[in-house]
């Protein structure tokens, strides 16, 4: 099982002006002392169309991590506006927080981000060249999307063996359809008879 469980991410300073740094207060629990640091990254998705506009805002090492519950604040500067396509500056995009251990990503937390002008006039008639000073960033903190990945927490020797566990053989054994609603009525057989005899 995963040695590190993310218990909560609180989005601080939200909503805030576009140029403010991102602040996430991350609480996680570790089952046992980790010999290596965790690496956390904040990735800002510049455009939904292409990954090439992704910006890694910052990456930090977090450690040492003994067994127990820990928290820290991950602060990263706002994205470089020069790298954001002008058409995608205003509107909904995504910010991702990822954590890796021994270079393996085991959790990815995504938030929708809505960038909007606060001024109603600008909202009605947005300038062609985005005015980042007037933009407000609002992270939809209440709806994080969390994806967890299985990784090998031990040394690298076991890596192959571990991937066997993920083999979804048990999944394939049954069709996705399950029985909704009540079971069909089943007549109670008369006592002491077993017709399969």
């Amino acid at each position, binding site marked *: *099982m995963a040695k590190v469980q*993310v*218990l*909560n991410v*609180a*989005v601080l300073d*939200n*909503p805030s002006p576009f140029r403010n740094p991102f602040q996430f207060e991350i609480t*996680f629990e570790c*089952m046992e002392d980790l010999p290596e640091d965790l690496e956390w990254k904040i990735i800002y*998705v510049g455009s939904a*169309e292409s990954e090439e506009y992704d910006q890694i805002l*910052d*990456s*930090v*090492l*977090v*450690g040492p991590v*003994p*067994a127990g*519950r*820990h928290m*820290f*604040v991950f*602060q990263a500067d706002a994205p470089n506006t020069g790298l954001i396509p002008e058409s*995608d500056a205003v*509107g*909904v995009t*995504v910010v991702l927080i990822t954590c*890796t251990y021994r270079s*393996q*990503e085991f959790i990815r937390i*995504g938030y929708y981000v*809505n960038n909007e002008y606060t001024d109603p006039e600008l909202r009605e008639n947005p300038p062609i060249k985005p005015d980042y000073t007037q933009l407000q960033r*609002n992270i*939809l*903190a209440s709806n994080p999307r*969390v994806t*967890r*990945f*299985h*990784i090998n927490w031990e040394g690298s020797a076991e890596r192959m063996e571990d*991937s066997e*566990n*993920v083999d979804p053989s*048990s999944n394939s*054994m*049954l069709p996705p359809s*399950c*029985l*909704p609603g*009540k*079971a069909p009525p*089943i007549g*109670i*057989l008369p006592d*002491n008879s*077993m*017709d*399969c005899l």
Partner: protein
Amino acid sequence: MKLLKPSWVSHHGKPIFSVDIHPDGTKFATGGQGEDSGKVMIWNMAPVLREEDEKNEDVHKMLCQMDNHLACVNCVRWSNNGLYLASGGDDKLVMVWKRAAFIGPSTVFGSSSKLANVEQWRCVTILRNHTGDVMDVAWSPHDVWLASCSVDNTIVIWNARKFPEMVTCLRGHTGLVKGLTWDPVGKYVASQADDHSLKVWRTVDWQMEANITKPFNECGGTTHVLRLSWSPDGQYLVSAHAMNNSGPTAQIVERDGWKTNMDFVGHRKAVTVVKFNPKIFKKKQKNGSSNKPSCPYCCCAVGSKDRSLSVWLTSLKRPLVVIHDLFDKSIMDISWTLTGLGMLVCSMDGTVAYLDFSLDELGDPLSEEEKNSIHQNIYGKSMAITNTEAQLSTTIIENPEMLKYQQQRQTSTQTNSAPGTVGPESSAPKLNSVMNGESLEDIRKNLLKKQVETRTADGRRRITPLCIAQLDTGDFSPALFNSVPILPSGSSMSNQLTPHLSSDSSPGQPSSLGFRPSHDPMLTSPPANSLKALEDNNEGVKSTLLLTSASKIEPIKALDSRFTERSKATPGLTAAITSTAGLTALDSRAKESSSTPAQKECKLKEDTSSDSEDKMASINKNLMYSKRKPELMIDGGEVVEKRKKGRPRKEKMTTSMVQSFTQIIPPSEQETRVSVPPSAVAALRLPTPSTQKAFSLQVSMEPSVFLEVENEVTVVAGSKLSQLRCSKDGRDWNTLLPSSVVTAAGSSDLIAVASEDRMLSVFSSCGRRLLPAIQLATPVSALHCTAHFVMVVTAGATLSVWDVQKQKALVRNESLQSILSGTDTSVSQSLLTQQGVPVVGLSNGKSFCFSSSLETWSLIADKADSLVQCADFRGCLSSHDAPVSSGPLAVMQGRYLNAGRLASRLSSTPHHMQQSMTLAFLENQLASALTLQSGQEYRYWLLIYSRFLVNEGSEHRLRELCKELLGPVHTSATTSWEPTTVGFRKRELLREVLPVIGENLRFQRLFTEYQDQLELLRNK
């Protein structure tokens, strides 16, 4: 029989491999496949049992889900006491879960809020040893052991009392082990494997008792599980998949000789699971029928790969009922309720069915007492009573004396647990979440500023995370799980801190677990109706926002994939991609923006609550402070006493002994001690008191005896004489001595004075000289009298003790070299016990007594001893016997003992470690008290020691202790047994120890054995 398939019990269509009903019948667990992991779910039983509860939306159906297993969960099993849940899965792990108290409902981070966990179950231990999928787990009767079996062909027995300790690994199967069952009396554990064998293992030596292969020879193909079961009377073991005449059967194995003559026939495909009803039944007495005693029988359910279920009574030749087509796929597991009338069945098709039987169908279940008496008849009493508490509630108390002590114990525990008495232990763990008087909220506010950030060698940022809780301290703040900054944790944290909060949230009332109204009005969570108003508000905002962002839905879909996409650097494991709806995201976005005013409001609330926490912290500090005060007073008191040498004492002192040691080092000698080189290697020198013109002291209280010494008073022909005046109960006597008196001491029987010319004179309490003056080799450093003993420590570091009554030396010029050597320690304290045992306390915190029988110095107290620091025997202190504060042991160990008790609270030593430390410490105390011949203290520690042994269940030590106290029952000339020890008759002591033993039903054999022998001896 009624049948129900609760459709809401599902793992989202994924297979359910295991089901188990909690012993209290209020919930059940399922285990199986999750989205991308194994899944354990805990469900409420009430909606299964009652339709109104199923329809009632306030009754939670799902109580908790745990996704921690990396791969499919094959088995879930509740411990017999219901405290733990064990789960085993394809990830080779066994996890043991425990309900976390104090934590209210919460969500798994990132899951939608509907799936709130009503109860919190935390993984307390992960058991790792298997190298393949764990297929089945089973708790032994009374939860002594946990067995797990695996496709690695082994069975591992874990010590359920000391997880993750492994007792043994049973090897012998040559195929995948797929089922386990314990003998109900705990003598055997049986396993069934793909190697066409069923093996029975003894729990005494963990060797194989029987290997049954014949019924399985024909078996072909594989089943996912082979869950076998042992009948509740222990007489039969029923296997899963066996073959008889090429038909699939469930083989009945008789305990007697492991014979395989009978089987359950009829299923068309392999039997996957057999489960005995926990109850033994007898035929229902019908009106008018003859009252002939009917033979008790058992009930057994059999599930098969052919998707059908059959229920059998051992009194009938045909099954009671067979149900076909209940499931679409193979039956995987069966669990009966403890009442024996309900049964849950789960299947690979991901559904669960509940069967409800009536007493008319099954018969009258025997009571636990009747069941126990059947066990006793078959297996004898010793087997039926295995050494555990769980079953002891059903144990028959065989001895009237025992009953008395059991009742006493119950009443005392009841009074102890009365409300309002919040012990220091119970409040301590709750304060864990407050560090250095700072609440978690304060920490969170300043986290960014406070957290340590460094740069690594290659210039990267490295943050040291703030540890907010140790893993083992148990329960943390629940509300942290929510995503809103700070707001909810404020109220729940303070909830946690309120000292009145109890952990006894009863099962079956999940709603009571939520936000409990706390006692402080300031801390109450916002009223529900204000939240409602907020929601109404949302509706409006939501719709407008939907309009504005409708055009953005397309890119959102594109964005969605980013949530689950893995970064490129990672090895290519398939990631489950969850589908998302952009619309819902926007909904919640609307909620978010509109709830900001509410957040502010709550933040205000939060401030006040953290204020009140600060107050609490400061109150705590005050408490600490006032606690310290008495200690300081004591210290001061001692100093004052030392200075009061000059005049007779007015205040009564508690004992002569205390008095005698406070007198050892008069203030004037302090300087001398410093000036004397502490270890001149060859000649050890101890400080000596200087001569004073006059001094007086009280040597005894009952009767009160005062001594007055006046040096160089009468001059007769140029020589000076010293006068010793003594008043006892108003009667005075005086005598003259040729040399100045340096120091004096006395008891109610004796007065001893040492003079400048190194002469020691001893007088009776009436002034009669009892001994001619004794010439000492070096001046006197310390002088003590107790009863008819005189003790002298000379400046030359030798010790002598005389018994004046017998005119005999007990200790003769014994050198202190051996205890003073090496380090520059000095004598800080010395005293003489009532029994004439000399005790010397050193400046390094060690205290020695000289045992005249062993002729050695024995260490009786060491303030630096880590055993003292960590021993925790508070649980064994009885309210009846007050601690002996005046004994020599207590005087020498004094307050350090208390410090030790406190220290044990602070340290987080593992239990077994602390247990051994406490045991060692208590044994030290006993031995020291014995050497000091301090009877009262011996008795006191003996009782604590035996109580500790009884609590911790160390039967061997207890037995040895009793044996020693009882002595030989028949005396002969060669018997060397002393009937008394330190002034107590040993058998009287045993009489006191026995009630302590009687408090634990587990030792009733021991109790009865010695009680009977004592009675026998008394009657002789």
